[in-house]
């Protein structure tokens, strides 16, 4: 069992994270899918800003010695395959791991069904029927084995590759370049998506959807807080749910991890946000859509275990650490999303 202070910090960070996810409608499935489907970039801007805020925060805290970075292991075959099928799954499930989780708190039963699929798919791949596939793609020997670094750098607590240590350069060079490029694009391409600023501050925070930049900065700060609280990583969603189902089935409280308390917090935080805003409603799509969402969740679960993380673990928390594993995994999540969105919504 993890210690009580970690349980509470997970729950507390989760509550705030869930609140921000619901208010910001922060879903990476929408963020990436809508680029090609609707030429909509609002959520993408929030994602980009959250990544930049965290990238600066993580490196600042690591430089000051508060944390060490833990980029994920680069199993290249697993990142490509796992990422791609995760991307397929999230379009079918109508939400990424974080989007699905916060929508459970809004009362969307389709997302609840997708979440059940995610947990089952994950456990199947971790320790069940598909575990051979996982060990095939994450082997200790052979062409698919992990690629590591002999000299990972001062800020990093393991031997995994980042954009910086693969070139033997100071990570701050990349932090600076990426920050300048992203901020320049966000400023130059700023559109008129801002919700019209009416109402009191209370209404803007609790009653309306947030502007993308509020969401981006809020989620970035929450990610930094998560890293400071947990020390071993920043935000993650899927691993928390796998631990939850594992603990339920085995009765072993050791299976509960920091992320389990985080995701429970997310559901509660999102529910609180939705109730205050008058957006909480138990609702469900038709049977065909429920089945589609279950299958999507199942595929996401398989993809998250093979690819070692979901969209949050890779794109939101891993890319800011400049992890090559997360850059590769994240890129294939986006490609899987685009391929599926094209087939489902854009042909004909």
């Amino acid at each position: 069992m993890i210690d009580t202070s970690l349980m509470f910090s997970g729950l507390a960070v989760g509550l705030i994270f869930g609140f921000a996810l619901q208010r910001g409608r922060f879903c990476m499935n929408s963020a990436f899918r809508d680029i090609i489907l609707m030429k909509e970039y609002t959520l993408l801007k929030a994602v980009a800003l959250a990544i930049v805020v965290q990238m600066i925060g993580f490196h600042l805290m690591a430089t000051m010695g508060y944390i060490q970075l833990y980029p994920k292991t680069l199993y290249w075959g697993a990142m490509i395959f796992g990422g791609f099928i995760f991307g397929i799954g999230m379009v079918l499930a109508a939400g990424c791991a974080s989007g699905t989780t916060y929508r459970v708190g809004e009362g969307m039963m389709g997302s609840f069904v997708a979440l059940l699929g995610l947990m089952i798919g994950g456990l199947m791949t971790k320790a069940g029927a598909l575990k051979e596939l996982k060990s095939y793609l994450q082997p200790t020997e052979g062409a698919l084995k992990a690629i590591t670094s002999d000299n990972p750098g001062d800020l990093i607590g393991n031997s995994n590759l980042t954009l910086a240590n693969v070139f033997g350069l100071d990570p701050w060079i990349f932090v600076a370049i990426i920050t300048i490029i992203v901020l320049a694009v966000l400023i130059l391409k700023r559109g008129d998506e801002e919700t019209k600023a009416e109402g009191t501050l209370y209404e803007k925070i609790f009653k309306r959807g947030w502007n993308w930049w509020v969401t981006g900065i809020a989620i970035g700060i929450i990610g930094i807080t998560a890293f400071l609280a947990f020390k071993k990583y920043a935000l993650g969603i899927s691993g928390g749910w796998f631990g939850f189902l594992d603990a339920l089935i085995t009765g072993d409280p050791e299976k509960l991890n920091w992320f389990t308390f985080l995701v429970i917090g997310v559901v509660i935080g999102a529910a609180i946000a939705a109730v205050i805003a008058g957006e909480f409603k138990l609702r469900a799509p038709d049977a065909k859509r429920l089945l589609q969402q279950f299958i999507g969740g199942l595929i996401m679960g398989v993809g998250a275990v093979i690819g070692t993380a979901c969209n949050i673990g890779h794109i939101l928390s891993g890319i800011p650490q400049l992890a090559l594993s997360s850059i590769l995994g994240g890129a294939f999540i986006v490609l899987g999303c685009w391929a599926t969105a094209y087939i489902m919504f854009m042909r004909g």
Partner: protein
Amino acid sequence: MSSDVKPTEVLDVRGEVCPYPDVKTQKKLKKMKSGEVLEVLVDYPLSAERIPRSAEKQGHQVLKAEKTGTGEWRILIKIK
């Protein structure tokens, strides 16, 4: 606008998941004629914000985008 505009067609996408409310609205908007009014009923918050935004971007006129109840919205779009 005191009196309500009478919609030409009503699209009820309540219960539908992301991004079907948007996709179905777009399909409908393409089929309708200029000057006609489409009423969209939606209970998915992201689409309730995104549908008026994309309709305006395409040059349609959003006559109304209002919250009608807990987690429910009604959007009136006049086709360009």
